[in-house]
């Protein structure tokens, strides 16, 4: 308490040792009585008050800005999708056709090749995220947005896509076609 009181007196004397008229004039006129006091120079007093005010404003701005910035970042969406999903039924797809299915929050594409085999992969084009489709005339996967082509293993074979589509594992259980993410080895 005593130490706190002393500090307070220090601040108060620093604040009030200035000529009150100096505020209006915009210059710091010294109180003649303080000139001789050791350690109390006008520059230090001004600097002290400026630092106090400046850091106060800075702290206030941070206190306002930080919550705003955090508010702007959307909360992470829960990926409700499991690692496995029923993408469709064998009766849904004729050979040489494809369909989009829901894999969690993202679209996937299920293809039945001309030979009747099922393939599944992510339907999000690796170029700029459009949703791809199966072209029965080309017998491979195509993205309409920027003319990207992928083969039936999801490999990018023509156009701007920089990477292959993520391929999924397909398992046919009875009539149901189960699709699961490939576990990383």
């Amino acid at each position: 308490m005593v130490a706190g009181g002393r500090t307070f007196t220090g601040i108060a004397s620093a604040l009030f040792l200035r000529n009150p008229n100096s505020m209006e004039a915009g210059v710091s006129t010294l109180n003649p009585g303080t000139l001789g006091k050791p350690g109390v120079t006008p520059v230090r007093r001004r600097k002290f008050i400026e630092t106090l005010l400046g850091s106060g404003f800075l702290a206030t701005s941070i206190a306002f800005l930080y919550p705003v910035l955090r508010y702007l970042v959307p909360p992470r969406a829960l990926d409700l999708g499991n690692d496995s999903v029923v993408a469709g039924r064998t009766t849904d797809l004729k050979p040489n056709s494809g369909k989009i299915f829901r894999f969690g929050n993202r679209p996937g594409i299920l293809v039945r090749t001309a030979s009747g085999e099922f393939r599944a992969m992510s339907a999000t084009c690796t170029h700029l995220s459009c949703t791809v489709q199966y072209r029965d005339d080309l017998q491979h996967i195509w993205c309409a947005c920027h003319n990207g082509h992928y083969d039936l293993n999801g490999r990018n074979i023509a156009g701007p896509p920089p990477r292959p589509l993520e391929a999924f594992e397909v398992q046919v259980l009875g009539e149901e076609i189960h699709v699961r993410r490939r576990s990383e080895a």
Partner: protein
Amino acid sequence: MAMFSSLRNWVDERFGWNELIAPLRKKTVPRHKLSYWYFLGGITLFLFIIQVLTGILLLLYYRPGATEAFESVQYIMTQVQFGWLVRSIHSWSANLMIFTAFAHMFSVLFLKAYRKPRELTWLTGMVLLFLVLGFGFSGYLLPWNTLAFFATKVGTEITGQVPLVGKPLMVFLRGGEDVTGATLTRFFGFHVAVLPGLATLLIGVHLLLVQRFGISVPPRLQAEWMAKPANQREMKFFPNFLLRELMAWYVALGVLGALAAIIPWDLGVKADPFVSAPAGIKPEWYFLFMFQTLKLIPSKVAGIDGEVLGILGFGVIALLWLLIPFFERDHASRTRQWITGIAVFALAYITGMTIYGHFAP
């Protein structure tokens, strides 16, 4: 009339109205064979006013959100009396405004109106042009149809390709990792609150600067007038130029009304995140030249992703474009020739790529 003048006296007594509008009375507009280009900025402003008014009307019925947006626009177009017209005017006026803003920018380039002391006028104008494109991009998503959905997906993904800041910026724009109803809500906020506020402020500064510096005369003509001051011709801004400008606005209104009534804006099919992008999908015409360029860049150039290169390229060009007035220091006339050359090339490139993009499969 007597009532009007007494009202005016009342205002003048209190606010010094006559003193306030004195500079406007003194304002003149140079008169020469290229004077017609001076109308473009004003027409853009007029279309912006139309956007604000029709936008407010649309707000009375529009509901943002993935489950309601499409239906509410459908409601406006089919149930609300003249709703189709209001929406059609809003869409057409947006497109015309983007066109006139681009035309205004190029006319300023060719007439060299950006030169000292008007650097800040150019800067505020360029930022306004970017804002106008932002209006176009954010407004396009609001009806929540398939084309808009994929355009937004691609557009925000492009933002995501920018090194370092791209990914967080994309998540900020989308309101998450993917384009969802959250994106629509954000875009709605940008479109009806953030962008209009910024645009109004900048238009104010832009007009104030135009008022402060007066209207630019092309350098060659200026030199001619300096040599022979007798040849110099000008007209009063108020009322001579203003009345001409109002006639231009009236013509613009006629064109707008005709387009909106004869070719009403389509609504399309409701967006579904779980369908493929339809064949033949393209962005709006004002993004087509960038779209077509990105389409032509191979997937890898010297080990770097094609898009990243394209996007950085467009970013650098946009920044250099913004700084055009600051390149004119020494050898002003030679720099100006360069700038004209680049502007001609840019205009040809944008026009050519837009047409190519329109007809390309």
